């Protein structure tokens, strides 16, 4: 009975414009590097991430949860602060946000593509042990 109801509802669903979709492409993955400050790693000294978002109508784009994903043994990850900043550009506008460990959002209006340049920064007051550090930031199109 429930299945029949479900099928009926699905059949009633109106067609949806093709542009009511969102594609998110990570075209360049970022690279952290040392800065002049021994307590800071930043992709501004390395390579920023570049993300291209396309195929939408009035998307809301959010940048959230910058986090440390890997670090060398012995590093006190709880003392580290991870932040993200972004610059976004599209046909008729732009947006930017400074370094934040929280969620940052913007609405891109109507455009063919939004290019987001994302930087990550890791700050550890006690400095860094030698090894591999990687971060991850969530970018959502909704």
């Amino acid at each position, binding site marked *: 009975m*429930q299945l029949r109801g479900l099928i009926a*509802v699905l059949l009633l669903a109106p067609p949806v414009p093709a542009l*009511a979709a969102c594609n998110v492409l990570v075209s360049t993955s*970022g690279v952290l590097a*040392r800065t002049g400050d021994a307590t800071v790693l930043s992709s501004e000294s390395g390579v920023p991430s570049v993300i291209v978002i396309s*195929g939408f109508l009035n998307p809301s784009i959010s940048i959230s949860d910058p986090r440390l994903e890997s670090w060398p043994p012995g590093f006190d990850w709880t003392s580290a602060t991870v932040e993200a900043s972004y610059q976004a550009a599209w046909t008729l506008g732009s947006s930017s946000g400074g370094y934040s460990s929280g969620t940052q959002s913007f609405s891109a209006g109507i455009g063919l593509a939004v290019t987001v340049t994302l930087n990550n920064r890791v700050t550890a007051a006690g400095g860094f042990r030698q*090894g591999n550090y990687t971060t991850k930031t969530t*970018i959502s199109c909704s």
Partner: protein
Amino acid sequence: MQLKAHMCALLFVAAAGAATAGAAGAQSLSPMHNSGVTPSDIKGFRLSVGNPYPRRMTFLVLPMEPGFKTAAADAAVDFPQLTLAPNSSRQVIVTFRIEPPRTERTIGVCVEPRDLRGTVLPRVCGTYTGRLIGVGG
């Protein structure tokens, strides 16, 4: 000292570079918003998940509460994980319960790549609202 610093810098760069090699990923979700009525307390939507880029990828399809931060209760996807060939798409059906006395419920659905290495986790999220038939349209 300079060499040491340089070596350290190279180590950071090399490590991150290795972690991100070939990490480009993408996905699509359509439609991103929809609403409709249901004669029962279960509402379903048919969504299309696509991989518009030129390599095979596996995606997670996650029912979420609106706001896309926590998993949605009483919601399911028929294919919560799917592997798509390049430039292909597949339809999935998400269903959720509208628990009485509620007459309307909105859930989110997020699509994200599984096991994507790199510095960015790209997500595409939509919202879908179901209403009991005969209640507010």
